């Protein structure tokens, strides 16, 4: 079976989900990406990416309880699966190997 490849946006989403833990849902993921990755993401782009990641088996989702602040609508909490963790580690290790020996922030490649 071929290895599951993740795009850059998908990696960012998975990292944001991991950072947020149990509180990972649409609003908080967008806020986390805007705050930490300095990447404003439209709701449409995020929800289609989450659907794609769930279809790949990289994340799972569960419906929370409805709250009055959300007009009585439930949150859809997401979590990274074991398959997602493996794919993310592999992607980040590839970055690490490529970065090894390079000094992008200082020196010759700055």
């Amino acid at each position, binding site marked *: 079976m071929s290895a599951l490849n993740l795009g850059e946006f998908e990696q960012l989403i998975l990292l944001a989900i991991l950072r947020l833990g149990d509180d990972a849902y649409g609003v908080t993921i967008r806020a986390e990406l805007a705050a930490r990755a300095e990447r404003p993401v439209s709701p449409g782009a995020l929800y289609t990416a989450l659907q794609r990641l769930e279809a790949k088996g990289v994340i799972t989702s569960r419906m929370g309880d409805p709250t009055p602040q959300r007009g009585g609508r439930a*949150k859809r909490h997401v979590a990274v699966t074991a398959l997602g963790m493996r794919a993310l580690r592999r992607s980040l290790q590839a970055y690490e190997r490529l970065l090894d020996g390079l000094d992008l922030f200082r020196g010759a490649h700055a």
Partner: protein
Amino acid sequence: MRDIDRAQRLLGLFTSVDCAEAIAGDLIEERRSHGVFWFWRHVLGTALAVSRSAVTDAPLQTLNLVAAGCALFATPAFAGVAAVSLFPQLIGTLVSWIVLSLFWWGGGLWTGASLVMIAQTRGMAACVVLALVGEVLLIGFGLIGAWQQAVSARSVAFYTIALLAPAPLLAGGAIARSRAITCASLRPEQKR
């Protein structure tokens, strides 16, 4: 009906019931800090993104549905033309345009509903693709026709009826999807 209900209904046409509920809830949660204009802009943007994703994630399935839609619509479309042609003395009269409209718009409604019955979430996206392709082809043929020969009242009436056919197509899809969602939400209550 409140804004959130309208938003959820619109999103529910293109995605699962749970997803539509969660997305509508997320957008209403953020509306307090961004305002009503932001809310509706992103409801429409998300509906568009989700429907586009339904097409791009499974292009062959969507193509099959669009082909099925063409086949389904062809029957009432040709039946309308045949019905009008059976009475040559009525061609060009108000009665002939009403008969043609009934066949074509009724056919559009039936095709939209059938596509959603065939594929619950992807069916509505197929309806949108079919409507857009149909409009583009009709406008193209209409412009070519207008360029090659003088525009007559008959051709204007013909193209107006044809150009309006995607509206009942989308309406048929939306009605079928809404009914399916209502039936699905009633089922757990019936079990109790």
